[in-house]
C-alpha cells in the first residue's frame, strides 16, 4: 500500500512539486543553523537597504538581514504547522474512532461537540487565549489542536463506520479479542489513511494562524517569525516594500505548498474525488 | 438465429439501430458495451429488449436518445435512425431538438430521476411547454396528463419525496407523455417497485399504449414482465443480441441457452409468486 501510494503521488505532478518544495524548505530550515553569516538577530549600520547583491533581500530598520529572517522563519512555521497538525490528528483520530466504533449516544455527543467547535469563531478565540495566556509556540499548537480536531474526527468517524463492517473485523472478533484491541489493532490502522489529506491541510491552516497571530503582535519578540516580520514591516510600507514582500511570499508559498500537497494526497487516496 | 419479423412491412420503422457498437473509454482501457446490435421498432408496435443487468441494454436505450456520457463513451460503429433520420453523429445541440418527440423515455428509479426541489406540476409542465404549441392551456394539459396516469390533479403541487414509488413512476410517465411521443422507451420501469405496484404500472402502460396508439420499447431483465406486453422481443447477452423474434415463439422454442435460462427463471418466479430471482455469476459482465 505504501509503495503504490508513493508511486501514485509521484505521478501527481503538482503534488510532487509541492512535496519537493516542502522538503527543500525543511532542508533549508535546518541548514541555515550552520551558516554563521546568516544571523537574523545581528544588527548592523546598513539600515533599510533595498535588495541588492550585497543585501540579498534587503535589511530592516535595525540593519538585520531579511534573508536570514526569512530562512529562520521556516523553523517556526514548519514546527508550529507540524506539531499543531499532529496534535489535531491524534485527538481527531482517537475521538473520531471511538465515536464511529462505539456509536450510540457517545457518537451523538461527540458529533454535537464537533458541531460546537465549528460554530465558535476559532481565530478570535485563539487570539484571545494567546492574549490571556501569553505568547508562545506551545499555546498556538495547543489552540490549533483543540480547534482543528473535529475536521479529522469527522473523516475518521466515517472511515471507521466503513471499516468496522468489513469481514476481517468480524473474523478478528471471532478470535475472542476484546473490543478495545479490535479498535486499536485492526480498525484504526485500516481507517487512518484518508485522514492524512486532512492533516496536511491542517498544517497549512496552522501556519497561517501562527502568521496571523504574530502579525497582530501575539508572538514573543525573541522568535523570528514571518508574521512578526510583517508586523514590523507594516510600519514601513511606504518606504521599504521588501520588509513585507519577502516574508509574506514565504508564508504564501509555504501554505500553498501544503494545500496543494494535501489536495494531491486526497486525490491519490480517493481517486473518485468525493470532495 | 433470428427469425423473420412478424410485423407487416407496411408500417414505418420509427426507431432503428444498425449494427450498433458502443464503447466506454477511460484513460487506460476501452470496454465494448454493445456489439453489432440491430433493433427496429415500428409505429404502434410493442417490442421488448431483455437481458441481465450489465448486458448493455440500458446503454442502447441511452444511445437512442443521445444520452450517453460525453467523453467517456462513443458509438464506434453502426447507425441510429429516428423516423428515418440518421442521428448517429448528432451534436448536443442537435439532440436537444430531437429528444422527447417522437421518442420519449421513462427511467428506472423514480425517486432519483425526479428533481427533488421542483414541484411535480412544473416538471410535467416543462415537457408540455417544450412540445405542445398551445401553451395557453398548459395547466389544463398538466391535469389531463396526471389523469391519464391515474393521479389526482392535486399531485401537481407535491414534491417528489411526498409521493410513493408507484406515484413517482406515474409522474415520470406523465412527463414522457407530455412530449406527445410516438414511441416510448421504458427502461426497467417497474424494477424499483413492489409486485402489486409493478402490475399496476404494467397495466397502465398497456392501456396507454392502446389508447394513444403509441409504440413502446420495453427494457427489462424479466422475461415474465415483457411476454404479456410485447409482440416481439430481443434478447441481449454479454453485449450482443443473441435472439430476436416473436415473443411467444421465443418462449416456446428458445434458440439460445441464455434465453432458456431466462424463461426458467421467469417461470420459477411466477410460480412461487415471488419477484424475479437473478441468475448468478456466469451471465453478468461489468458494464451497464
Amino acid at each position, binding site marked *: 500500500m505504501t509503495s503504490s501510494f508513493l508511486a501514485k503521488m509521484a505521478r501527481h505532478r503538482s503534488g510532487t512539486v509541492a512535496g519537493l518544495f516542502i522538503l527543500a524548505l525543511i532542508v533549508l530550515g535546518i541548514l541555515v543553523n550552520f551558516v554563521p553569516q546568516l544571523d537574523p538577530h545581528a544588527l548592523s549600520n546598513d539600515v533599510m537597504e533595498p535588495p541588492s547583491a550585497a543585501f540579498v533581500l534587503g535589511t530592516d530598520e535595525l540593519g538585520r538581514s531579511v534573508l536570514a529572517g526569512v530562512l529562520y522563519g521556516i523553523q517556526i512555521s514548519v514546527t508550529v504547522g507540524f506539531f499543531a497538525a499532529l496534535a489535531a490528528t491524534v485527538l481527531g483520530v482517537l475521538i473520531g474512532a471511538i465515536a464511529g466504533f462505539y456509536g450510540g449516544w457517545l457518537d451523538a455527543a461527540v458529533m454535537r461537540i464537533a458541531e460546537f467547535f465549528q460554530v465558535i469563531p476559532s481565530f*478570535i478565540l485563539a487570539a484571545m487565549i494567546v492574549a490571556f495566556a501569553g505568547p508562545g509556540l506551545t499555546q498556538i499548537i495547543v489552540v490549533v489542536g483543540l480547534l482543528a480536531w473535529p475536521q479529522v474526527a469527522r473523516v475518521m468517524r466515517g472511515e471507521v463506520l466503513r471499516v468496522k463492517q468489513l469481514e476481517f473485523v468480524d473474523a478478528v472478533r471471532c478470535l475472542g479479542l476484546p473490543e478495545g484491541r479490535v479498535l486499536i489493532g485492526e480498525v484504526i490502522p485500516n481507517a487512518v489513511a484518508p485522514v492524512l489529506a486532512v492533516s496536511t491541510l491542517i498544517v497549512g491552516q496552522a501556519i497561517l494562524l501562527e502568521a496571523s497571530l504574530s502579525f497582530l503582535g501575539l508572538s514573543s519578540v525573541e522568535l523570528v517569525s514571518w508574521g512578526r516580520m510583517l508586523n514590523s514591516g*507594516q510600519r514601513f510600507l511606504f518606504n521599504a516594500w521588501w520588509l513585507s514582500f519577502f516574508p509574506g511570499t514565504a508564508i504564501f508559498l509555504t501554505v500553498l505548498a501544503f494545500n496543494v500537497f494535501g489536495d494531491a494526497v486526497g486525490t491519490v487516496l480517493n481517486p473518485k474525488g468525493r470532495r | 438465429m433470428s427469425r423473420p419479423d412478424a410485423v407487416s412491412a407496411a408500417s414505418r420503422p420509427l426507431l432503428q439501430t444498425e449494427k450498433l457498437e458502443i464503447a466506454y473509454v477511460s484513460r487506460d482501457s476501452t470496454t465494448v458495451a454493445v456489439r453489432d446490435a440491430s433493433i427496429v421498432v415500428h409505429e404502434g408496435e410493442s417490442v421488448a429488449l431483455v437481458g441481465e443487468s450489465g448486458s448493455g441494454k440500458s446503454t442502447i436505450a441511452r444511445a437512442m436518445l443521445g444520452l450517453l456520457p460525453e467523453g467517456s463513451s462513443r458509438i464506434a460503429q453502426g447507425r441510429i435512425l429516428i423516423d428515418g433520420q440518421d442521428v448517429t453523429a448528432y451534436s448536443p445541440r442537435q439532440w*436537444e431538438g430531437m429528444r422527447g418527440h417522437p421518442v*420519449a423515455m421513462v427511467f428506472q428509479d423514480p425517486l432519483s430521476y425526479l428533481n427533488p426541489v421542483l414541484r411535480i406540476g412544473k416538471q410535467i409542465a416543462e415537457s408540455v411547454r417544450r412540445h405542445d404549441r398551445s401553451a395557453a392551456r398548459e395547466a389544463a394539459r398538466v391535469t389531463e396528463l396526471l389523469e391519464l396516469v391515474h393521479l389526482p390533479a392535486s399531485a401537481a403541487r407535491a414534491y417528489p419525496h411526498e409521493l410513493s414509488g408507484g406515484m413517482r413512476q406515474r409522474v415520470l410517465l406523465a412527463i414522457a407523455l407530455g412530449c406527445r411521443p410516438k414511441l416510448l422507451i421504458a427502461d426497467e420501469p417497474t424494477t424499483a417497485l413492489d409486485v402489486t405496484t409493478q402490475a399496476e404500472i404494467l397495466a397502465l402502460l398497456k392501456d396507454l399504449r392502446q389508447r394513444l396508439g403509441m409504440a413502446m420499447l420495453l427494457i427489462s431483465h424479466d422475461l415474465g414482465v415483457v411476454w404479456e406486453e410485447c409482440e416481439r422481443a430481443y434478447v441481449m447477452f454479454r453485449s450482443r443480441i443473441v435472439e430476436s423474434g416473436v415473443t411467444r415463439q421465443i418462449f416456446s422454442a428458445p434458440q439460445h441457452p441464455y434465453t432458456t435460462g431466462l424463461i426458467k427463471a421467469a417461470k420459477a418466479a411466477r410460480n412461487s409468486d415471488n419477484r424475479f430471482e437473478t441468475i448468478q455469476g456466469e451471465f453478468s459482465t461489468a458494464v451497464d
Partner: protein
Amino acid sequence: MLPFLLSRIAWGILIVIAILVLNFLIIHTVPGDPLQALLGDFPVPPGHAEKIRADFGLDQPLITQLGLYLGNLVQGNLGFSFANRAAVLDLILMRLGPTILLMVPALIFAAVFGIMLGVAAAPRAGSFRDSALTAISLFGYSVPVFWLGQMLVIVFAINLGWLPAQGMRSMREQLVGFDAVLSTLRHLILPGFSVMIFYIAIVARVARASVIEALHQDYVFTAKAKGLSQRYILWNHVLPNAMIPVATVIGYSFGHSLTGAILVETVFAWPGIGSLFITSITNRDYPVLQGIFLLAAVSVVVINICTDILYATLDPRVRKGM
C-alpha cells in the same frame, strides 16, 4: 416549518450558552487572578476593582460566579473598558458600523462572483476555465489576507497612487454629502478586495463541486430526455439543487467574517471592530476582547439560523422532514 424553526433557535440558544460558559472558563483557567482578566491590565481607578469583585462574586463558589456572570450579560453588562472610558457594549456598537460597511458588500460580491466562477467552470471540468478557477481558489485559500492587503497598498496606493492607503475617509479636507460618500467608497476598494479573495475562493470551490455533482444526478437525464436545452437545465434544474450547499458556505462566510475583518482592518487602519480588537490586545483590555468574542459567536449562531431558514426555502425535503 415552525417546529423546524423553533428547534434551530433552541439549538442556537444552547450554543450561545455553551460559548458563554467557555468564555467564563477562559477567565478562570488562564494563569493569574480572574479579577485581572475582568479588569484588564489598563490602570483602573481605586474602588472599581472592589465593585467588579462584588458584581461577579469572585469570593463565592465557581457555580455562583457563573450564575452572576450570565446574569450580568443578560442585562447587557459586558463590563467597562477603562482604556476607552466607555462601557464595552457601547464601544462595540459604535465600531460595528464601519465593519458592516466593509464586510457586507465584500461578502455579497464574493458570493456572487464565487457562484458565477463555480458555475462557469463546472460543466467543463479540466478545461482552461476550470484550471483558472482552481488557481484562483488555491490562491485565495493560501494567501494571508493581511499580506495581500499590504501588497495592494504598496502597488495601488503608494506606487500608482490611485487609491488611498488607510482609513475610512479622507482626513485632509472636511467632506460633506456626496463627496464624503465617494471618498468612503474609494477607501473601501482595497480592504474590500483583500477580504473578498478568500471568500470568493471558498464559495467558488463549493459552487463548482456542487454544480458538478448536480450535473451528474439522474434527474438531469429526465430533463434532457424531455428535450430541454443544456442552458435551461443548468439554470432551472441543476442550480436550484447546487445552491443548497453553497448557501451553507455563504452562511459560514458571513458568520465568520469578523475574523477577516480583524486582520484587514489592522492593515488599512479601518476604524471597526477589528481595530478595536487589536488595540484591546495591545492594552490587554480583556473585557473588550471577551465582548468581541461574544459578538462574533452570537453572530455566527444568528447567521446559522438564517442559513437554516434559507436552506428550508431552497430544499423542500428539509421543510417537511424537520
